[in-house]
């Protein structure tokens, strides 16, 4: 095994890669269902991103620690049990100490279990790498999940409701007096797809590595 320092270039690449070149949502198109469902407003999007961060990092480390013990025939079940346990714990802790946030998120916390990014990283990375690398990979991928989520939610909330984190930005700017109206389309699910598409478009315009060569 190589004697990398904790923050060697190779390890940092594990964080940087999922942010752009190998983004789980916009490049691998994983976890897209939850990304589309909770981007109407910024607050649930951010809390979801934070919850996924916790679950993904811990699950990655746990699976990585157990990688030599897990029987390969039931490894998917084992991964699922680990994720589900963590998600239930997060849900219970939120209900006990952050009751209002847990009410806001309600069903979405449970949906983390079905987030394909987490399963994907456990299967593809944590099972074959050391705990520290798995942790870095978890950090990178959850940030990579958070980035498009927050960007899409930012535009959907701003253009759809005229607010940011519930704060009436456009009203305070006085845009409504000039005849501006909120775009109701932005609140509807299809616009999540379109906004996500625009994000991917812009990302590919800037990053040539992502453009497929024919």
């Amino acid at each position, binding site marked *: 095994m190589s004697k990398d320092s904790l923050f060697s270039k190779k390890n940092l690449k594990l964080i940087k890669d999922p942010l752009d070149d190998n983004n789980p949502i916009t490049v691998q198109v994983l976890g897209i269902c939850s990304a589309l469902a909770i981007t*109407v407003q910024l607050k649930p999007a951010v809390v979801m991103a934070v919850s996924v961060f916790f679950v993904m990092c811990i699950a990655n480390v746990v699976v990585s620690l157990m990688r*030599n*013990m*897990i*029987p*390969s*025939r*039931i490894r998917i*079940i*084992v991964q699922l*049990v680990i994720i589900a*346990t963590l998600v*239930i*714990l997060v849900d*219970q*802790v939120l*209900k*006990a*100490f952050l*009751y*209002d946030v847990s009410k806001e998120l*309600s*069903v979405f916390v449970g949906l983390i279990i079905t987030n394909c990014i987490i399963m994907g990283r456990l299967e593809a990375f944590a099972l074959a790498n050391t705990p520290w690398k798995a942790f870095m990979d978890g950090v990178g991928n959850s940030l990579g999940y958070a980035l498009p989520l927050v960007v899409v939610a930012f535009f959907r909330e701003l253009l759809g409701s005229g607010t940011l984190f519930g704060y009436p930005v456009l009203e305070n700017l006085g845009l409504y007096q000039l005849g501006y109206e909120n775009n109701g389309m932005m*609140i509807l699910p299809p616009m999540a797809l379109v906004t996500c598409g625009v994000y991917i478009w812009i990302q590919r315009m800037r990053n040539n590595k992502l453009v497929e060569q024919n």
Partner: protein
Amino acid sequence: MDVNKNSYTIGFATIMVIIVAALLSSAAIGLKPFQSKNIEQEKKQNILKSVGVEVSREQAEIDYSTYIKEELVVNHLGEIQEGSAFNVDLSKEVRKDAKDQSLPLYVAEVEGALRYIIPLRGKGLWGPIWGFISLEKDLNTISAAVFDHKAETPGLGAEINRDFFQDPFAGKTIFDGEEFKSIKVIKGGAKEGDKHGVDGISGGTITSDGVTDMIFERLSMYLPYFNNVKPAIEVDSVFSAMDSVVTVNDSIIN
């Protein structure tokens, strides 16, 4: 060790399940007191909101005893039973036969005015819906109403817990003369001046109908109690009217 042997696989699965079960159940038991405290505080917050007192969850704990004067339990004949309204689990009561139900009722005093608070529980589209509705002293005019739900469709039925839906309930009446009318949530919007109807939510018709049914069903359970106490209230208001006449007379004499 061969991790792919059948015996190892079964052993691993067994041990994993036991560890996970122990972990989760201890977390659930350990966190239970905190969670039930939150739920209790939220219930108090909702009860207070139904009489127009909007406070934070922590403050509700303190203010609750200031405003809520009585926690009654009545039966289907309108007789007062032993027990406290706060401890009645309405989700269990609504499943019983009408004559076996314990009906919780809170009496509040807000800025000198008497309010009767009736807890509600019914069915929405996907799961239970509940709330509190408060009546003024005449047991006819609604002072305020709050609703909440477990799993109604976000953006549609789930909107019943928003102010724009709840506010129009205030000032509506449940009786037309002597006849019990309840309050209807009307698809397409209530007509102007409708004393017994409020606007429904577009796309949330089944939840809206659930609210209508819930209010009708729960309020009608209390009709015997209303009939029992109404004469007393009327006498009371005659007395207080007489009092004011006397005061006026006194002031004229003086």
